[in-house]
C-alpha cells in the first residue's frame, strides 16, 4: 500500500501511528543502515541488532525529526550513536570476530581471489582506530558528503576531511607492511 508514497508522506503517516508506513521507511533504509553498522563494528549479529534498534528508536523519537532535514542523516546519526554505545558495552563482552566468509560465484577461482583480497582490506581496516574507520564507511559505503558526515559524527567538517586523509595514509601503511599493496593495485 505504501510502496508508492514519497518519503515525507510516509513520515507523516508514521507520525499518526501508521506502522506499515514506517515499515516502508525501514525497507528503504535498512540496507544503508545495516551496511553502516557492519562497517563500523565488523560484526553481523551486532549490526543486525543495532539496525533493528535504530529503527525502533527513530520511530519512538520521530517527533524530534525535522521534516526539512534529510532523513538519511538523522537515521544514520542514531545508528552511529548506537554503534558507539555498543563498542563501550563490548569492552566487557569481548566478541570473537566472525570468520571471513566466502561467497559462491560463477567462477570459484575468481570469486576466491576476490574474497581473499577483500578480506585482507577488511583486516587492514580492523587495525584502524574506530575514529578513522567510521568516516571511511560513511564516505565510501554510504557515499555521503563531508558536511553530512560531520553532522552524523558531531565533529567539524575539517575534522572529517583530516580523519579520512589520515585514515587512508594509515591504511596504505598497514597494507604495505602486510604485503597487500599488490592486491590493491591489481
Amino acid at each position: 500500500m505504501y510502496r508508492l508514497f514519497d518519503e515525507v508522506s510516509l513520515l507523516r503517516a508514521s507520525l499518526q501511528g501508521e506502522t506499515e508506513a514506517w515499515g516502508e521507511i525501514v525497507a528503504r533504509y535498512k540496507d544503508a543502515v545495516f551496511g553502516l553498522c557492519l562497517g563500523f563494528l565488523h560484526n553481523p549479529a551486532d549490526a543486525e541488532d543495532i539496525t533493528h534498534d535504530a529503527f525502533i528508536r527513530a520511530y519512538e523519537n520521530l517527533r524530534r525529526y525535522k521534516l526539512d532535514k534529510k532523513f538519511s542523516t538523522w537515521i544514520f546519526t542514531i545508528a552511529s550513536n548506537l554503534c558507539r554505545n555498543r563498542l563501550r558495552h563490548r569492552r566487557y563482552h569481548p566478541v570473537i570476530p566472525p570468520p571471513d566468509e566466502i561467497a559462491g560465484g560463477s567462477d570459484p577461482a575468481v570469486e576466491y581471489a576476490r574474497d581473499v583480497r577483500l578480506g585482507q582490506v577488511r583486516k587492514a581496516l580492523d587495525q584502524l582506530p574506530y575514529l578513522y574507520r567510521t568516516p571511511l564507511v560513511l564516505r565510501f559505503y554510504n557515499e555521503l558528503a563531508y558536511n553530512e558526515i560531520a553532522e552524523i559524527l558531531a565533529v567539524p567538517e575539517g575534522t572529517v576531511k583530516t580523519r579520512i586523509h589520515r585514515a587512508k595514509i594509515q591504511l596504505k601503511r598497514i597494507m604495505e607492511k602486510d604485503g597487500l599493496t599488490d592486491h590493491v593495485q591489481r
Partner: protein
Amino acid sequence: MYNDDLEHQLKETFEHEAALHRDRLEGLESRISEELEGRLPKPGFGDLIRDLVAPSKAGRMGQLVVLAATAAVFLIVGGLFLPELSPQLNPAERLAEAGGGVAFGTTVFLVPAPNASEVVLVGSFNNWEATPLADEDLDGIWRVELTLDPGRYEYAFVVDGQWWGQDPAADETVRSYGGYSSVRYIGLAGGDA
C-alpha cells in the same frame, strides 16, 4: 598505490561484506511494523506547548502572542529581582526549591558478590566507563556512592568481567543490545532519592 584504487577497494569491501550478510535483514520491516503496532511516536516538547496554548489552530497565533507578551513581562520584572530571588544553587538545591520531584543527593549502588575480585559500575552517567565498587568490610557486598544530577540513568554492574544488569534496587530494567540494563530515575517523582 593510488588514492582511487584505495577508495575503490574500500567501497568494494564494504559492499561485499554487507551483501554477504544481507539475508539477516529479510522481513525486518514486517517485524518492526508488528513490534510497533499500536504504539505512537512519543509526544515532542513542541506538541506539549501547542496543546497548552492552542487547542484549535484558528486561535493559535493570537494565543502565542499573548503568551509571548506575558513571558516578556515576567522576564523584565523578574530580572529586576533576580539577584535576590535566585542565588547560585546546585541542581539538588534548585530541585528542592522548585518543589518538584523528591529530594535527592548521594545515590548508593550495591551488589552482592562474595566471591568476586573486581566489581565495576558502568552507565550513562559515566559514559559507560568503569567506576569501581569497593567491599571494604569484606562482607561480600560491593558498594559505591555517586552524586548524580536529576535524570534517567541506565547502568549495569560488571562482576569479574560479567555483565549484570538486573539490579533489584533499580526503578526498572530494560533490555538493550541483547542484554539487560537497570534504570534509575534520580530526582524525579517516583524515582530514587
